């Protein structure tokens, strides 16, 4: 059942930057689709976030479990936006 829920219904490319795109960028850099897939791989973990804007602070990489650390402020550059996929569940 969990596997069915984890499968997204649709996907679209990001056109402009917003907080959701920033969130998806951070997950996709670490090798995951989105938060749902991350929690499937690491069910026990609470995602570490920056307190002032709730952006993701730290993620484990999908392939090897190494840590990626993210900045306090926006990281996704304009030139990266079109690469980001936004999944709907």
């Amino acid at each position, binding site marked *: 059942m969990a596997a069915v829920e984890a499968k997204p219904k649709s996907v679209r490319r990001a056109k402009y930057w917003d907080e959701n795109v920033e969130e998806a960028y951070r997950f996709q*850099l670490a090798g995951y689709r989105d938060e749902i897939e991350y929690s499937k791989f690491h069910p026990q973990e609470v995602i570490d976030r920056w307190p002032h804007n709730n952006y993701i602070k*730290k993620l484990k*990489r999908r392939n*090897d479990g*190494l*840590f*990626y*650390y993210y900045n306090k402020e926006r990281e996704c550059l304009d030139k990266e936006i079109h690469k980001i996929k936004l999944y709907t569940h």
Partner: protein
Amino acid sequence: MATAVAPPLSRKGASPKAATADAFTVKAYTGNAKVSSPPKAGALEPRPYKPTDFRKFYDRGDFPIALEHDTKGNKIAWKVEIEKLDYHHYLPLFFDGLCETAHPYEFFARQGVHDMLEHGGKKILPVIPQLIIPIKNALNTRNVKVICTTLKILQHLVISSELVGEALVPYYRQILPILNIYKMKNLNSGDGIDYSQQKRENIGDLIQETLEAFERHGGEDAFINIKYMIPTYESCILN
């Protein structure tokens, strides 16, 4: 008598070739010696640096980072959580790597320092005294690219945690002399576009920004100490 010692004319009408001599030497006082201009002081010339400890540690694989050269974006993958790292050991080592200009050392040092400052919090302040010599060494290379990177790191350092700016004030004597040399090195392009501004590589502007960051975060003694080392600096708070 004078015609007897003069060298032969090479061409009709050409003057005899005068021997060049360094200033203030015995030769310089002889009649037809041409005194050469003094050699360049080379205050702004890049200076060679010794291989850094950072390079040695990196080559040995002693850092808790994944040694991958095809890093996606500009990220380092850490093998250990940064919060659990011994800052007294690793932060000075990463700062030591700021002297490096070769890939991948330069990238890993710069990004490693960035990550450790961004996530260090209270662990940064006690390490400040150990960072001064690496910072001074990096600035002393007088390599413009290295200085620009170091200035950006210094700007990050003063905002990384509370009281770090104030903790740096006693060390201005070590850090600021090089900034004084390069402070006026700015491009006068008239009404042309200076692309180094966009890339934040204009050293004069970067120094001004850094000094202003020092003054803003350095407490009440910061300005007078900066002014002592850099007399041309004007306060960004008082004015």
